């Protein structure tokens, strides 16, 4: 029966607040449950942590955790899917509409650069970053480097203040 199911399956999906313990659980899940060689599993782990931490820190939609207004975490969505030739890690979250053009420009730049250029961009971005908040950009650059594939991004206007940002990253098998 299972041989007839198309080779395009969802492994796990989640929508809600994203905190470090959820990310840690998912990181362990990938290590323990994904059936692939260790190099692939390690790449999936890295991409998942970077993308979900971006959701946690930078989503325009937040929720208080543990009833503490100082413990706000970003709300978003993530999904891990398996296709015939690759695993796909996707995240989605609300962003402020005015941030969309810069984010789109940054993703286009990442997709345009080759590996050496991306490493140079990562080094430059890292050296210019603030230690208290390194920013989402370097996480996206690192994700592009690890996956070796273009970042697939979508921006959909939700209301006059917000867009929904979705990013999908393929890790080749």
């Amino acid at each position: 029966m299972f041989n007839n199911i198309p080779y395009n399956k969802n492994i796990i999906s989640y929508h809600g607040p994203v905190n470090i313990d959820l990310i840690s659980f998912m990181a362990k899940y990938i290590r323990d449950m994904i059936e692939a060689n260790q190099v692939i599993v390690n790449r999936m782990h890295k991409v998942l942590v970077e993308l979900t931490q971006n959701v946690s820190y930078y989503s325009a939609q937040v929720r208080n955790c543990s009833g503490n207004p100082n413990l706000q975490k970003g709300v978003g969505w993530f999904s891990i899917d398996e296709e015939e030739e690759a695993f796909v890690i996707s995240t989605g979250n609300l962003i402020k509409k005015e941030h969309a053009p810069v984010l789109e420009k940054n993703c286009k730049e990442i997709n345009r650069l080759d590996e050496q250029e991306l490493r140079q961009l990562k080094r430059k971005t890292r050296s210019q970053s603030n230690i208290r908040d390194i920013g989402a950009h370097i996480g996206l650059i690192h994700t592009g480097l690890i996956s070796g594939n273009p970042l697939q991004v979508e921006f959909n206007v939700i209301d006059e203040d917000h867009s929904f940002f979705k990013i999908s990253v393929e890790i080749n098998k």
Partner: protein
Amino acid sequence: MKSLVINAEVDSPYYPEVYFNADTGICDIAGESYMEEAYKFYLPLINWIKEFVLNEKKPLTINFKLIYFNTSSSRLILDILDILKKFKDDGHKIIVNWYYDPDDPDVKDEVEDFEIESGMDIELQEMDK
């Protein structure tokens, strides 16, 4: 000077284990590093290193045994390497070893990038599995 010891915690696997030995000058950072507000974790480590090198005047060896670190942690790791390079240029004996998992070949590029950015020599060693 006291050694700096941070034990690993099962409930917080995103913090590495740290053992900076004030007697031998051998400093180990092991495990995973992807905590929130990484600077709060790493600044005490940086301060310990500065105090050790300037006051103890002994050689320092730092062994990175991280099986994973996120980009926020990498920024602080680079800060550590920058400081070590300054001390090395000032004549202190500083050695940096990076132990990597052979199933994670991408980390060799990351270490090379650390060397380029900091100017610090880093000896790559394969981790025992």
